[in-house]
């Protein structure tokens, strides 16, 4: 039995992009992982599972039937060329070169291209456009941070190694004792597994984050706070935490979807960033979004490099146009403003509200997707790819916008090409069809 240990493997699950994974192969099959979290392990192991789609499929008379790659590409291109305003959605769980071809395809089709940031940190991006972003890399957090705030996020579940690798428990150059040198503050509506580890836990009522930011900003400036509590958090606790924040050597606020999905949305993030800016009058403070998908940051980077815009980009006018709320996927679906959808590296049928999917299910849907999932269940065409970071290389951007090269660990099932090559074939077919009309 041929056994091989691959080291320094990058995990293509969450925005932490842990790059110290070990993959153990036996006879070119993954049999074990080391250093990865349970979710990362699941991703590597499931690449070989029975529910993997290995052949392209086209829906005929309501049934999905296996077909050839060429026929599936032709069918997908016909759908997209025929559509007046196709929506190209997903992109966050594939690598940057595939995203780059996606933008070329969007331009060729006068399509809307949008990624999962739309339902994750899109509001954070809007806030950053309003007030800027005092940021840093995770390496600086590891080596310098002595006060760490997790607000509206639960890394113990969503980014399982974040605290151990970058922020809380790890020993840093200036934080030699790890956790003993750091203070952990958690703000959440539930006493989550992250909150249980906190030195200070502020249990805020749902929808009151904005008020709590305001109260902290007032406390930091020495201004009075009326009442006994703000959003369910006692004023005395707010004053105590404000003092800890003012006295930090290097503080960092990590924030999650508890802010972007709740009442206030981008305004919550604006206030979080404004708090960070205020704190810099007293101490060094930075702020960072807890990006979910491993390359959701990379899509924005590619989008800004290609078009000037980070997500929800509309090529209907023949040039890129960006207006979240108008050019973002859920509004487009709910207002029935698209007539075909290409989904890549994502599962909107699982993760969009029912009213968006009710309309999407009426449209021709092309899914570039390796596994059976609710989106493939309603798809008209399925193109199964090689999985980036497991079966092919590529570049992804970590949540702090550091680019990291993904590694190939095993071969993809026969005939499954990388997303980039599938998109290139689709683009070529689209151009061919358009030249005939």
């Amino acid at each position, binding site marked *: 039995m041929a056994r091989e240990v691959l080291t320094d493997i990058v995990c293509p699950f969450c925005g932490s992009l842990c790059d110290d994974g070990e993959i153990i192969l036996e006879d070119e099959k993954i049999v074990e992982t080391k250093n990865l979290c349970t979710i990362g392990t699941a991703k590597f192991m499931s690449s070989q599972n029975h*529910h993997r789609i290995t052949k392209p499929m086209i829906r005929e008379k309501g049934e999905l039937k296996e077909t050839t790659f060429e026929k599936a590409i032709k069918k997908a291109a016909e759908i997209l060329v025929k559509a007046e305003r196709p929506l190209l959605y997903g992109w966050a769980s594939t690598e940057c070169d595939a995203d780059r071809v996606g933008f070329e395809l969007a331009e060729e089709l006068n399509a809307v291209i949008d990624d999962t940031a739309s339902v994750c940190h899109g509001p954070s991006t809007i806030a950053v456009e309003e007030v800027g972003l005092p940021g840093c890399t995770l390496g600086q957090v590891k080596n310098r941070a002595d006060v760490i705030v997790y607000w509206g996020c639960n890394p113990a*579940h969503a980014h399982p190694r974040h605290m151990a690798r970058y922020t809380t428990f790890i020993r840093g150059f200036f934080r030699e004792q790890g956790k003993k040198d750091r203070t952990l503050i958690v703000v959440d*509506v539930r006493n989550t597994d992250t909150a249980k580890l906190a030195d200070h836990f502020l249990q805020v009522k749902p929808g009151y984050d904005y008020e709590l930011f305001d109260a902290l900003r007032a406390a930091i400036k020495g201004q009075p706070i009326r009442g006994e509590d703000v959003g369910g958090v006692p004023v005395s606790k707010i004053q105590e935490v404000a003092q800890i924040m003012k006295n930090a050597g290097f503080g960092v606020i990590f924030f999650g979807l508890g802010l972007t999905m709740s009442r206030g949305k981008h305004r919550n993030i604006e206030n979080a960033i404004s708090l960070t800016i205020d704190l810099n009058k007293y101490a060094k403070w930075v702020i960072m979004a807890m990006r979910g998908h491993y390359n959701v940051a990379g899509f924005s980077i590619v989008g800004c490099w290609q078009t000037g815009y980070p997500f929800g980009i509309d090529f209907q006018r023949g040039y890129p146009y960006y207006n979240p709320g108008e050019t973002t996927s859920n509004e487009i679906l709910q207002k029935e403003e698209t007539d075909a959808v290409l989904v890549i590296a994502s599962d909107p049928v*699982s993760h969009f509200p029912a009213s968006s999917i009710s309309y999407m*299910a009426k449209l021709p849907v092309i899914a570039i997707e390796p596994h059976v999932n609710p989106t493939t*269940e309603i798809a008209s065409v399925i193109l199964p790819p090689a999985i980036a970071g497991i079966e092919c290389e590529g570049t992804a951007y970590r949540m702090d916008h550091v680019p990291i090269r993904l590694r190939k660990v095993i071969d993809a099932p026969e005939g499954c090409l990388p997303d980039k090559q599938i998109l290139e074939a689709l683009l070529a077919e689209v151009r061919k069809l358009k030249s005939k009309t």
Partner: protein
Amino acid sequence: MSKNNSLKAILITGRSLDQGVAIETDKAGDLFTRACGKCLMDPQDMKKLKILSGDTVLAKTSYGEVVVRAEKSPDAPHEGIVFIPMGPWANQIVNPSTNSTGMPSFKGVEVTIEPAPGKPVLSALDIARKFLAK
């Protein structure tokens, strides 16, 4: 607040470790249903409804309804707040309004929970097929 054996609460949806493992392992299988077709509740709220972990409940909002399995929350106390992990079950009842930001309101939705003995929890693929059938 309990009325006619129903509970008014605020719905929060989001990630969990089990949800992450399930979506990366097999969305077509039972693991996904067990990880996300559930509603984590404060034990006091469960007492009010006279339900135990594992009982099925109907979660209703202005936007839809879904049957999920109730479970005692490990993150209590949070009376009046229920948590359904992100996924097709939660998304049948979240508020689709984006306030022109692109982002639907996945958290902070008013919900009513009532016992639903004997009602089945659909699989993710069953939920998807229901859209096709419409």
